[in-house]
């Protein structure tokens, strides 16, 4: 079964309840009008599958995109996926506004750097930022590396660097982060589950 058909079924079902209210109060069927408007909005769009980025219910999302004449991809709409045994198409206010998280003019556009004692951000290229951080990692690691601890036990770790993060890392990003950070000798390695 294609998800387009099931989506329409879902809207039909949703429309019955909301439509009754709309008719009685406004004299026309708001849900019906909304449905038509939304269908025009996403007609011919590409459907992709995603998962809500917020809590751990794991609601499935359908994202509608359209490729523009200049080749760029425009996100048109995000809605709940009616096929999911988890959410059956429903979303909370956060999931329903996920589009405003995905696309925002307020995102940081390029790498930024604040020097020691500095009072403002400066832009920095990715290449410079990554080189500078890599040098910091090496310097801190070399300064704080412990081969054997106070009791003479072999530990091969760095005590001077910590890494924390990743509740919105996918599984695969998180796995790579843990693998790389441990290879650098980090033992101060934490994520959101702790706090």
């Amino acid at each position, binding site marked *: 079964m294609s998800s387009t058909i099931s989506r329409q079924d879902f809207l039909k079902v949703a429309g019955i309840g909301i439509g009754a209210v709309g008719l009685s109060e406004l004299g026309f069927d708001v849900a019906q009008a909304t449905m038509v408007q939304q269908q025009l909005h996403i007609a011919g769009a590409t459907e992709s599958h995603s998962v809500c980025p917020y809590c751990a219910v794991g609601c499935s999302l359908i994202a509608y995109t359209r490729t523009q004449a200049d080749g760029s991809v425009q*996100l048109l709409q995000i809605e709940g996926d009616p096929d999911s045994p*988890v959410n059956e198409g429903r979303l909370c206010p956060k999931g329903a506004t996920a589009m405003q998280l995905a696309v925002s003019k307020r995102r940081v556009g390029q790498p930024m750097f604040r020097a020691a004692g500095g009072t403002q951000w400066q832009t920095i290229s990715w290449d410079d930022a990554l080189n500078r951080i890599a040098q910091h990692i090496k310097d801190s690691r070399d300064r704080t590396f412990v081969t054997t*601890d106070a009791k003479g036990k072999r530990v091969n770790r*760095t005590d001077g660097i910590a890494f924390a993060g990743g509740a919105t890392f996918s599984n695969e990003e998180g796995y790579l982060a843990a693998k790389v950070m441990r290879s650098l000798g980090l033992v101060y390695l934490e994520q959101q589950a702790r706090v």
Partner: protein
Amino acid sequence: MTNHWRDIKNADVILITGANPAEAQPVGFQWFMRAKLDPTKGPGKGGGAKIIHIDPRFSRTSAVSDLYVRIRPGTDIALYGGLMNYVLQHDLYPAEYVTNYTNASFIVKESYSFQGGLFSGYDVARREYNVKEWAYETGADGFAERDMTLKNPRCVLSLLKQHYSRYTPELVSTITGIPQDAFLNVAEIVGQMGKPDKVMTIVYAVGLTQHTTGTQMIRSGALLQLLLGNMGRPGGGMNAERGHANIQGNTDNAISWDLLPGYISVPMAGDETIDEYVKKHAPKKLDPRSWNYLGTNYKKFTVSLLKAWYGARATAANDFAFAYLPKPSANSSWLSIYDQALRGKMEGLMLSGMSAMSIGPDSNQILQALSNLKWLVVMDPFPTTSSEFWHAPGANAGSIQTEVFMLPATHWIEKDGSFVNSGRWMQWKDQVLQPQDQSMHDHWIIAELHARVKQLYVSHGGAYPGPILDLAMEYRNPVKPTLDEIAQEVNGKDLKTGERLATFAKLTDDGSTSSGDWIYAGSYPPKGNMAKRRNGVQDPKKNDPTGMGFFPEWAWSWPLNRRILYNRASADLDGKPWDPRRPGIVWNGSKWVGDVPDYPPTMSPHDPKAWLPFIMTGEGVGRIWAAALLVDGPFPEHYEPTESPVRNALHPAISTSPVVFFYDKAAGRLNRFGTPDEFPIVATTYRLTEHEHYVTQWVPHLVQLQPEAFVELPPGLAAERGIANGDYVNVRSKRGMMHCRALVSKRFGQVDLGGTKVWQIGIPIHWGYVGLAAELYGSKSDHWLANVLTPFVGDANARTPETKAFLVQVEKA
């Protein structure tokens, strides 16, 4: 979750403590409501499942519950202890389950005792227990001694009865503030849930976790579930409702100081070889009929992980590069990171998708810790309170010597990869959009950093470069790995044939297999990525053949696509379901059918050598008694929060946990804990539907819905302090001050602790000095960080900060 979201529809009673799913996980909450509206569910003759909500705050969850009971935060062990006492006193537990499926029959050594608030083995100077004093009595064969009649005074059931006999309704009421009749109403319903044809689920969230007794608080719920025979059953279990999209997956894959992927221990100082490590950390087989699956296969999982990380460089001759794994000598958790920075020992910190300043605890102290760093890297799509900490309100940027890097990272929708939900369902998502502006994927940033650090060591040498130089980054482009390649690495493969594995049963300890996380073996077998499967409710008859809501071909669930953990315990000794209307797995005469069995698929329950039901534990059964797993006791015991308005009614001399670690004291820093004479009000933090932690401060619609920071006060307290709804107030703890509006509401109230009346208030955590609302409100947002108030102390076991129960004072601003 031992179970999963949709499974909650199978419950007769839904007991919710330390959680507010109607607001925090509203879409998951539909399964609670479906149970409630299903006349075949419920205690007695049915009529719909009963929802019991026990929480400091009356929320939307309470509004649709059958029973709402207000509790003082930090006292849930007293509640659960009281419920266990009720079940034991009234003989309401299922004998067959408790005798055969739990360690109730195990005999404990005579060295164990509990007196005056202390378990045996306490070392006052070190504030530590010698947990060996709580071990089982073992025979010459090394197996634990058992008394299947449960009459032995030192068997676990006898000790359990003795331990919780102190938790009378009266004492429960004095500690928790729950009136005795309300407690007995709850106990009467819960007490019916030990019947084989009834089942209860317990749902919790960080309201149980974030306490100095958090681990034991959760354990007290799990004990009740074992005692009632509800673990392993559809509609049962102990279900953590997690609050972040992939917090489950990132715990599974061990971005965690104390774990390696798949819940095997991180090697500690002193673990010199793999064999020593396995000997020390792998569970021991304690009964001849215990399969001890984890313990038996620990080495296979470890070697296969090292093969995934170090490839051809991990050989039998070099102990599979085990020396390359860094080994902590002491706790290295979240609080320890900032403690080390405060001590001037931490040079650099990388934060991705987490903001230390907002998360806290004790954000003022965190600000000092960040100021002590040489460098800080923040990887995030938006500015955070941590990327901007150096010009936070009150900070003097010129005097802060930390170099700060803000690296724009991509969003979830700009890359593919899987999220694992609270119910362990691994769901793959598409890349929908290209990265905005110059944003880079987190995993590419990390791979780039590895490559550049590696190059520095190749060119210049330095400390112990082996683990960096030899790390297997065998991706088509080592600085741009695809998440599909990594998913295959996590799954693992047979290194002789190159074929991906379909199960962790094929893993070996001779270096001929690799798997980055054994519990994910089978998620990406030769036939493809199971997490992409989409056979859901579009055809329920076909896709949910048992009708139990497992939907086995929707995505994939670890381990081995099993939807309910410990499901052998869903059937009786003969393999028949406790309740035929709600089967988990069933023995059909030749094999187990239903869910993917947590058991050998063709092992007959009538085989005299049949494994015991809980195949992952050394005991082979569920653990009511924790012999040596936890640092603070074999049974949960109520201790007061570090900041409490009262002394412990059970043992006033030992009021708080005797083994909690005090960072500030150990480091010689000033005391940062308040006392009830100065701070008489109990505060707890909470979350709103419209925000998720801190990132939603950048989402316009959500900021419109919940624009401004506030604290929630009960009307009586507000009247006492002359505070009207909407007034600005100052909320102070020993550590800092929050300045924001007051929401005066009956959702909070007063608790009566055996005559001592205490006000309770609630503080949503979502605001700070960064985001759309902060820009809108200007200097009014200067003191919006809730976690400036919370204490820098953590759970005795997990070191999770105690952000759910602390003391404050409130005044009109």
